[in-house]
C-alpha cells in the first residue's frame, strides 16, 4: 500500500469519502443523446467560473460612483491579468446565459420535467431567473455610460408593477433617481443576495437530479410504449440490470427505465469534461481577444449618448420600445405570464407522452414563445450595430 493510499484510507475512515465518491461517480445514465446532457454540467462549470473570477474582481472593485469606474479603468490600463479576469467574468456570463437557455430548451423538448421531476424543473427555472438577475445587476457595476443607462431603464421596469411598483423602484434606486445608493444596493444584490439564493438552489437541483436520475430523451425509451399506429411494441430489455435511480418512482413505469444506459464515470464525465473545457477555452480566447469593454464614466447630463442595451436584455427592451407608454403595464403581463407558465409547465402538461412531435399542444405555444423572443431580438438587433 502506497503512502497516498494510506492517507486516503485515513480520510475515508473519518469521512466515508470513498463511498461518497463511488455514489457520485458510478451511476447509470441514459446512453443515447448523452452529448445533450452535457449542457447541465457546462452550466455548473460556467457558474463556478463566475464565482472564482467574481471573487478576484471584488478584490479590486470599489462599489462607488466615484471609484467604481476608476477601479475597473485601472485594470484596463495597468493590469493585463486583471483585465483578462474581467473579460473572463463577462464572457463566461454571456456564454452561461446561452448555455443555460439551451439546457432549458433541451429539457422542454424532451419532456424531462414530467413526473416525478417537476421540482427539478421548478428549481431549474428559478436558477435561470437568478442567472438573468445576476447578469442584469452585473451590467450596472462598471458605472460607465452603458451601465448608467442600463440602470435607468432596468430599475424603471418594476415601477410598472400595480400598486407597489413605485415603492420597488424607490427601494432599488434608493430614491427617485439612479445614483450612489443604487450602485451600492445593486452591488449587494449581485455579490451577496443572489448568490445566497443561487448556490443552495444549485445544490437542491443537483440533489433532485441524483434522486430521480437523468431522464434524457424519449429516444432512450423508444419501443417501451404503445406505438401510435395502434400496434403494441414489446419493451426491449435493458442491456444490463438497471441500478437505482432507475426505475425511479414507480408511478411512471413505462418511462422509468431507459433502454440503454452507461456509467456516469467515465463515459458521461468525459463528455461533460470535454464540453466544459472547450467552453472555458472559448471564454478565455474571447476574454483575451475582445476583453470587457469600458465606456467613458457615467454622465447623467449627457444628451449625445445613444444607449444600447445588453444583448440578453434586447427582447424586453424592444418590447418596451414598441409598446406605447400607457400600455407598458399591460405588455409586461406577457413576460410575467410567460415566467408563471414556465414554472407551472410540469403541472399543466401531465400526460405520459414525452416525444416532442407528439405533444403539439405544449410544443406549439412553447415554439411561439421562443419565436417571439427571437423575433424581438432580431428586430432590436439593428441598434446593437448602431450604424
Amino acid at each position: 500500500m502506497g503512502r497516498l493510499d494510506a492517507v486516503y484510507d485515513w480520510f475515508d475512515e473519518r469521512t466515508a469519502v470513498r463511498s461518497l465518491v463511488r455514489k457520485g461517480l458510478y451511476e447509470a445514465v441514459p446512453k443515447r443523446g448523452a452529448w445533450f446532457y452535457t449542457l447541465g454540467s457546462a452550466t455548473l462549470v460556467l457558474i463556478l467560473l463566475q464565482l472564482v473570477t467574481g471573487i478576484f474582481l471584488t478584490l479590486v472593485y470599489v462599489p462607488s460612483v466615484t471609484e467604481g469606474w476608476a477601479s475597473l479603468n485601472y485594470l484596463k490600463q495597468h493590469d493585463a491579468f486583471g483585465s483578462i479576469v474581467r473579460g473572463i467574468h463577462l464572457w463566461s456570463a454571456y456564454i452561461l446565459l446561452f448555455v443555460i437557455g439551451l439546457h432549458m430548451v433541451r429539457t422542454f423538448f424532451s419532456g424531462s420535467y414530467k413526473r416525478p421531476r417537476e421540482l427539478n424543473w421548478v428549481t431549474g427555472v428559478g436558477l435561470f431567473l437568478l442567472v438573468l438577475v445576476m447578469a442584469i445587476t452585473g451590467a450596472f457595476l462598471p458605472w460607465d455610460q452603458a451601465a448608467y443607462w442600463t440602470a435607468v431603464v432596468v430599475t424603471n421596469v418594476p415601477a410598472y408593477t400595480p400598486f407597489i411598483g413605485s415603492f420597488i423602484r424607490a427601494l432599488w434606486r434608493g430614491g427617485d433617481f439612479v445614483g450612489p445608493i443604487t450602485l451600492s444596493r445593486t452591488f449587494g444584490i449581485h455579490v451577496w443576495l443572489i448568490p445566497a439564493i443561487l448556490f443552495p438552489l444549485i445544490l437542491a437541483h443537483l440533489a433532485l437530479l441524483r434522486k430521480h436520475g437523468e431522464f434524457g430523451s424519449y429516444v432512450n425509451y423508444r419501443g417501451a410504449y404503445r406505438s401510435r399506429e395502434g400496434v403494441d411494441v414489446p419493451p426491449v430489455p435493458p442491456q444490463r440490470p438497471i441500478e437505482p435511480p432507475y426505475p425511479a418512482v414507480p408511478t411512471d413505469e413505462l418511462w422509468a427505465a431507459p433502454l440503454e444506459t452507461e456509467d456516469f464515470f467515465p463515459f458521461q464525465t468525459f463528455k461533460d469534461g470535454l464540453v466544459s473545457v472547450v467552453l472555458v477555452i472559448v471564454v478565455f480566447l474571447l476574454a483575451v481577444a475582445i476583453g470587457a469593454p469600458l465606456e467613458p464614466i457615467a454622465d447623467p447630463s449627457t444628451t449625445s449618448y445613444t444607449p444600447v442595451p445588453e444583448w440578453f436584455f434586447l427582447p424586453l427592451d424592444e418590447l418596451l420600445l414598441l409598446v406605447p407608454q400607457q400600455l407598458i403595464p399591460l405588455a409586461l403581463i406577457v413576460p410575467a405570464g410567460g415566467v408563471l407558465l414556465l414554472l407551472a409547465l410540469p403541472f399543466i402538461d401531465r400526460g405520459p407522452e414525452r416525444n416532442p412531435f407528439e405533444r403539439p399542444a405544449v410544443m406549439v405555444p412553447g415554439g411561439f414563445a421562443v419565436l417571439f423572443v427571437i423575433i424581438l431580438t432580431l428586430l432590436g438587433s439593428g441598434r446593437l450595430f448602431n450604424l
Partner: protein
Amino acid sequence: MNALALIAPLLERLAGELPATAPQGHNIVGAQIAIGSLFSIHILIAGLVSGAGELGPAIEFLGFMRQRRGYDRLAHGLGRFITYYFSFSSTIAILLITVLLVGFWGHFWTTIVTIAWWPLFIEAWTFVLQVSLAYIWYYTWDPLRGFKGLHMAIGGLLAIASFLQVYMIDVVASYMLTPTTPQNPIRLVLNATSYPLTVHRTVGNLAYIGFVIGAFCAIRFVRAKTVQDKAFYDWAGSFGLLWGISMTLLQPIVGYSYAKEIQLHAYGSWYKMMLGTLSPVFLWQITLLGLMFLTATIYFARRLRTNGARGAGLLKVMAVGLVLTTLLAAQPYHLGFTYAAVASAGLDRPFWEGGLINPLGSMIPWKVLALMSYTLIAIAAVVWYLRGLPGVVWGAARRGEQRLLMLMAVLTILMMVTMGFIRENSRAPFLISGEMTIQGQQNVQPTVSPSPSGGG
C-alpha cells in the same frame, strides 16, 4: 403570297404608329399600372414558391420524426408545386426586369443595380441554387428513400436558399423606402427597415403557403372519391390552416415594429399610411387581419364540433371575442378621407362635439390593444384546437369547413395585394425615398451610336 401582301401594309402601318422606343414619359400612370399589376402577380407566385421551399422540407422532417406517411405525401406535393411554378414565376420576373423596368424606368433600374449590386448579385445566384436544389430535392425523393437524412439535408439547403433569396430582395426593397449611405454594402444590408421587412415577408410567405395548402386541399377533398384521399385532404387542409394562422399571429408584432421603423426613418411614408391618403387602405388591412383570425377560429370550432371533440364551445367564445376586436380595429380615426382634410376644415375634434374625429379609432391605445388582442386570442385558439385534435376523425369534415379554407386563401391574397399596394404607394412620388421620383427618372433617351464603318 396573298396573305403576306395583306399583312405587309398592316405591319408597315403599325410600325409607323408605334413609338420608336419604350413609351417613356407619355403615360406614367399606365406604366405604373402595368408594373404594379405584374409585380403583384409575381409576388403572389414567388411568395408561394419561397414559402413552399421553406415549408416543404420542414414538413418532410416532421413526417420523418412522427413516422406518418401523410407528411411525406404533402411535402412531396409541395416539391412538385415548386418545380411547376418556379419557371412561371421566373418568366414574370424576367419580363418585369428586362421589358418593363428597363424599358419604362431605365434610369431607376441602372441606379438601383449600381447601389445594390452585391445583394442583387447574391440574389441571382440564390435563384440558381434554389432551382437546382428544388429539382434535386423533388426528383431524388424515391431514389434517396433509404437515405432520408441526406434527402432532408438537401431540403434544408433548399430552405436556406429560399430564405436568402427573399432576404436579398428585401434588402433592395427596404433600401428603396429607407435609403442609407450607398457606398457601404453593410449599411445597405442593415438599413433601418431591412430586418423588419425580412421577418415580415418570411413569416408572411410561410403563412401564405399554409393557407394555399388549406384551400387546395379543400378543393381536392370535395372532389376526392376514396376514403383514404378524403382523410388525407381533410388532415392536410387542417394542417395548412393551422400552420398559416400560427405564422400569421406573429405578424401583428412584426408589422407594428416595421411601421415603427418607417415612422422613425421615413416619416412621410408613415404619415401617408396612418393619416394620409393611404389610411383608408390601412384600415381595410387591419380589418382584413381580424377577418383572417376570425375565419380560422370558426373553422377550428366547426372542425372540432363535427366530430364532437372537446373545445368547440370555447372556440366559439373566442370567435365572438375576435368579432368584437375586429370591430374595434376597424374604427376609423378621422371621418374624412385624410386627417389633413379634416384638420384644414377646422373639424379636428371629437364627433360628439361636432367634429370628424373618432377617438376610438386612434392607433394608441385602441389599435395597439386590438393587435394585442388578435395575437392573444389567436394563440389561445390554436392551442385549444391542438388540444381537441386527438378527438378528430380525419375524412369526416363537412363542406362548410372546406369553404372556410377556401375563403382563408382569398383573404390572404387580398391581404398580400393590399400590403404591396400600401408599401409601394407610401413612397410615391419617389421610387427611392427622397432621392428619385417616378417622373424624374424617365428622361433617359437612348443615343444612336455611329456605325463603325462611318457610313449608312
